[in-house]
């Protein structure tokens, strides 16, 4: 098999460049020289000669935010890649089984109950997991149907139900204190990321990533009709449960810290597939690189393009829609 290293090299190079740029630009510009000098003094342990506020901006303000964009982008793209393969459909996004709606309901409920940010994140995470567990539990019991179809339809129905509960809470919420916070959360943001949030989300995202990496070959067989995959020796029920769990964990961890940021998990795996084909082992790493880079670029734009912060979910949609249509026209029939 040919090694097709080029897309990975380009994506890695672009990601490194973007990361340096993201540290440099903003309300308080930092030069690349300053960033590298700070980096080398951190590595060698020598005394930094830079002004203290440069270090504060890079390490305290931009550092967590840049890292969060990378982690959230990569996690959403990885989950999207897994789900698109599993549902044999390139139009599937990581929230197809209701993880985002469930997380949103958890967060909105926490805001409605005036709980603090820690509980908002906890309830978002728990809400996401609970919604998918509910969808999966019901879907698996609808026997006599195609298991995937049962799962998708249950996801749609439960998602709609949870959505109307969110609407009810918004209707009941205090329009001056709670409603803006709810709206802000539903639009997604990386502005208020603290190192603590990352420390909680990153291990969970990694925990979700591990089975996907280990099962990268076997994942391909989930793209086959159920009977065929089983006849080839795969226990599809077990594998599918594992993949749903892993992808849900990744998505819920991401959504809990960033709120709902759409499009990354839909668009990125699709773009990666056009570059390296559908084999999951090749697709997953590229998808994560592109996802991390895309969200970092979007978030950097969000905080620099206008005097006020633009919600990243709005920007991903503005960039994503035309890009997706372009890809779609490019791809013709084969994904």
């Amino acid at each position, binding site marked *: 098999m040919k090694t097709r290293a080029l897309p990975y090299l380009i994506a890695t190079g672009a990601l490194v460049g973007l990361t340096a740029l993201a540290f440099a630009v903003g309300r308080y510009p930092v030069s690349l020289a300053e960033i590298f000098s700070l980096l080398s003094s951190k590595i060698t342990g020598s005394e930094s000669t830079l002004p203290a506020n440069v270090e504060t901006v890079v390490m305290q303000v931009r550092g967590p935010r840049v890292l969060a964009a990378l982690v959230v982008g990569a996690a959403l793209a990885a989950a999207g890649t897994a789900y698109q393969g599993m549902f044999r459909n*390139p139009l599937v996004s990581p929230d197809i089984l209701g993880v985002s709606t469930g997380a949103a309901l958890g967060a909105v409920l926490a805001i409605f109950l005036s709980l603090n940010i820690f509980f908002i994140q906890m309830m978002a995470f728990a809400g996401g997991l609970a919604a998918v567990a509910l969808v999966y539990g019901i879907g698996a019991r609808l026997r006599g149907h195609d298991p995937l179809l049962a799962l998708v339809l249950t996801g749609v129905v439960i998602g709609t139900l949870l959505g109307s509960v969110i609407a009810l809470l918004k209707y009941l919420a205090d329009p001056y204190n709670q409603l803006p916070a709810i709206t802000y959360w539903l639009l997604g943001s990386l502005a208020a990321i603290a190192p603590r949030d990352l420390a909680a989300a990153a291990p969970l995202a990694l925990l979700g990533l591990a089975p996907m990496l280990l099962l990268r070959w076997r994942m*391909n*067989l989930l*793209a086959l009709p159920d009977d065929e995959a*089983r006849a*080839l*020796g795969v226990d599809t029920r077990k594998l599918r449960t594992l993949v749903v769990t892993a992808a849900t964990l990744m998505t819920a961890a991401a959504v809990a810290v960033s709120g709902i940021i759409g499009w990354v998990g839909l668009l990125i795996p699709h773009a990666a597939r056009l570059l390296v084909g*559908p084999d999951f*082992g090749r697709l997953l790493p590229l998808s994560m690189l592109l996802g991390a880079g895309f969200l970092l670029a979007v978030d950097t734009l969000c905080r620099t393009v206008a005097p006020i912060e633009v919600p990243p979910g709005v920007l991903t949609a503005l960039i994503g829609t035309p890009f997706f249509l372009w890809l779609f026209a490019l791809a013709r029939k*084969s994904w």
Partner: protein
Amino acid sequence: MLEANALAFGFPGRTVGHDVSFSLAAGEVMCVLGPNGGGKTTLFRTLLGLLPPHGGSIALQGDALKTLSRREIARRVGYVPQGQVSGFAYTVLEVVLMGRTAHLGAFGTPGERDRRVAARALETLGIAHLAERPVTQVSGGERQLALIARALAQEPRLLVMDEPTASLDFGNQVRVLQSVSSLAASGISILFASHDPDHAFLAAHRALLLAEGRVVALGAPAEVIRADTLERLYQVKVSVVPVGGGHTCLPALER
């Protein structure tokens, strides 16, 4: 190789077939004929262990099928489905390599030996030149051959083929039947379903006629494929005529 004894089969809550018994020897080809909805696909899915039997028993190389794991079954039986378009543009080689799954560990990826087996399977079916082509961009006949190659990559003792010639043009039908014959000559047992009784004459040692889930006849094609059995199967008038040392079926149209 494969033995079915008083087998009843169907979907959860609905039994569609009763009292099917047969055995298949190594290197033997059996063609299953029957009308649409006669239970052919359901029988095959049961024989592959994809549906639990509703009664009776199945034995594979002397082992009760229900005691074998999915992985163990996949190492003994290759399944060739009707060639549908799969959603993603995997290359033909990638599709064939998927046949190696049962020989890999849960976290394994195909290695050198797996690639050799896949390449040999492509060679056997005469489609080695298609290896790097996306499976979504080859013809229906080529895709069917790729699916047979995938089943061969399982290194099975038995191939179960569900209407391998469906929706293929005449030339590709002959090519598929040719590969059925040569695979059987190499010692693999083959069970295949067809809508064309002539295929049984051409490629099968025995024919099993299945209607409404019951065995109408089972035996050498020349003995069981007759005007009366075909009329019972399909409710049309057919004459079976000897030609060139074999037989062929001629439907009699009303004028």
